[in-house]
């Protein structure tokens, strides 16, 4: 079933907008804003605010309606469906079915210096009240921190014979993260070791579908908890181990 935005009345299609046009404010500025939104396909445009921000720019706040709808059932994607387990169950799974510690190496790579995200997943104290991977007795987790070159990350993962590599990418401006993430994949492939690792990426602008596209095994977005990641890693590593 098609649905449309719900403002005041179901299906009214109301959307709120704000934007800046690089033009001086004038008596007709509001009409420019209105006709612009009409050109974009909206109707019943109400310009709520239209104000000179500066002699060269005009700021707009508007409400308008669309007749376009979307059917949520037709939106299909590569969503990660992890069966979330608890701390004890994860450790038990690794112990019983893998039979050794699960090795994890993580880092914020290349120019990215944001560690709070990867720390939240890996460090002892964890995040949102649940422990980080370092606390799992059945994991051997190393958080390398920030600005780690891809080559160094790989070297460490190989040295430690890790099962999984966790990468954090927070800065996404000018798609710098795509560049870094691709660089890592290419390195792994060039070295012929891509298949040796469960490769995971996370960050506020990451999702699973995007991660898959880039060649990663999974992607985690904002508000990820260590438990989700640990559940995924344990299940995936055990699965691969048993398949092999």
């Amino acid at each position, binding site marked *: 079933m098609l649905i449309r935005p719900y403002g*005041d009345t179901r299906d009214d299609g109301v959307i709120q907008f704000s934007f800046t046009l690089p033009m001086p404010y004038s008596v007709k500025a509001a009409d420019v804003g209105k006709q612009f939104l009409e050109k974009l396909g909206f109707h019943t445009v109400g310009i709520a605010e239209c104000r000179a921000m500066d002699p060269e720019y005009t*700021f707009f*706040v508007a*409400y308008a309606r669309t007749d376009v709808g979307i059917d949520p059932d037709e939106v299909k994607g590569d969503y990660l469906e992890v069966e979330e387990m608890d701390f004890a169950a994860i450790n038990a799974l690794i112990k019983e079915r893998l039979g050794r510690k699960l090795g994890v190496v993580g880092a914020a790579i290349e120019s990215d210096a944001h560690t709070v995200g990867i720390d939240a997943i890996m460090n002892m104290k964890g995040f949102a009240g649940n422990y980080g991977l370092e606390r799992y007795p059945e994991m051997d987790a190393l958080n390398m921190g920030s600005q780690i070159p891809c080559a160094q990350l790989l070297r460490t993962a190989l040295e430690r014979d890790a099962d999984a590599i966790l990468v954090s990418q927070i800065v996404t401006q000018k798609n710098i993260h795509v560049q870094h993430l691709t660089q890592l994949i290419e390195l792994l492939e060039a070295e012929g070791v891509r298949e040796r690792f469960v490769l995971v990426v996370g960050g506020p602008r990451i999702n699973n579908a995007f991660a898959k596209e880039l060649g990663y095994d999974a992607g985690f977005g904002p*508000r990820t908890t260590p438990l989700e990641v640990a559940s995924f890693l344990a299940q995936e590593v055990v699965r691969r181990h048993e398949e092999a």
Partner: protein
Amino acid sequence: MSDALQLNGDLVDRARAAADAIADDIQRHIDEHTTDTTERASLRLLGITGVNEIDVPLVNVVVEHARSLLPSGILRPFVDLMDRTGRGAQEVAEGVAAGELTLAPVPPERCEGVEARAEALAREGVARIDAVRARRNELVATVGEPPKPYVYVIVATGNIYEDAAQAKAAARAGADVIAVIRTTAQSLLDYVPYGETTEGFGGTYATQENFRLMRAALDEVGEELGHYVRLCNYASGLCMPEIATMGALERLDMMLNDSMYGIIFRNINMQRTFVDQYLSRLINARAGIVINTGEDNYLTTADAFEAGHTVVSSDFINEAFALRANLEPWQIGLGHAFEIDPAKPDQVVYQIADAQLIRQLFPGYPLKYMPPTKYMPGDIFQGHIIDGMFNFTGILTGQEIMLLGMLTEALHTPLLQDRYVSIRNAKYVFEACRHLADEISYKPSGLIERRADEQLRRAVEQLEHVRSIGLFKALQNGEFADVKRDPDGGRGFEGVIKVAPDYFNPFFAALREGRMSGPPRGTERGETTAGDSAVAGGGD
């Protein structure tokens, strides 16, 4: 913080004395008059409902039919006709509407019996109200209470089903009180529309069926949330006591009920309004409903910085009328507002002074604090911040009923998401600043204390002046909200009737008799939605 400002106790006493005298004066007028809607409300209290084939409510038909009998009250002849026909109130009303039955003066020999039966019926009517109130008490006790201040938002789609859906969403987002705004001109109708409605603009018709539908929706969501969700509607207008009756029967919890709003803002005749508000408030009082007064409106037509004291004096007047109508302090939600121009330097400092003054003048009263409206900009981001400072002032000064400002106030009645973001705004500010009031004190004789003192002084001056000229005259002069009204002008004047010496209406006594007292009590439940940590959102 309840005595954070040093106020001059003498001035407070003088204000109350003047307001009392003003109200006593008007009360004499009230006691000497009845109105169409007072009589119609009395019939509704007997249980009469429904409309005729052209959608005129039966109570209007009956009162119209008996116009000549009204000076003595509709109830004596009506109950007499019930007696004579052996029919119930509803059947008699239908008979009258059908032209089958005719109301007639009651001969003296039947009076005593008829009056006794009418008194019994009045007690039955009041008992129905009591049962509803008892049900509220029970629900609050079992379902639980949300923490104060109450977060109050409006719905106004015109369609009661849409309103109900939006009200539920608002409650889930953290609203504690839902007010259904009436459609634009309803308050000027001299009857109450009937049945469920799905059209209206700027609001939804206030009908008994709509009340019932919304009540059911809120009970459902209250159960789900673990705290009682309150319902509010508007009594003020041309049918105050009738709507109050409907509210009492359908378990509304709050009603906008001001002794002067209709006069000033709807140009309803003042003689009419004072009479109407009296019965409507007696009913609200009985029903355990909290009233909200409308002083905030003054500051939309008059300047809030200059005329802030008129809010204070009007609050004293509304208090005096409310106490005369048997309302208990916990039921008297006096109104005031955050309407000083945000471009005024130290706006928030002055708003704190005004709000804290009113808080201290009316301890124990559930003050209704209105958000900025007149100066809200089209820039919703800026508006949202002004609302944030309103929320701050509210929590700092201990207001109990916070009408939330909407970032789109200058644009449209609230969208679903406008309420959501406003509630998130309020919940954050309330939690983040909850105990700030306990931590600070105001500098003696500082800007805040001086402003509060000046407001109080000016209010006393105004009240004593109004006492000397009388409230009718003051309204004529435009002394509230800069709006002038003629005592014989405005709508509904034709419905004001001087009562005869034998005027009879047992409800006035029945409503006062053996009433319950005190607010409903429940344990504080419902956690705050601010609890969900706001860590970096997003993800695409």
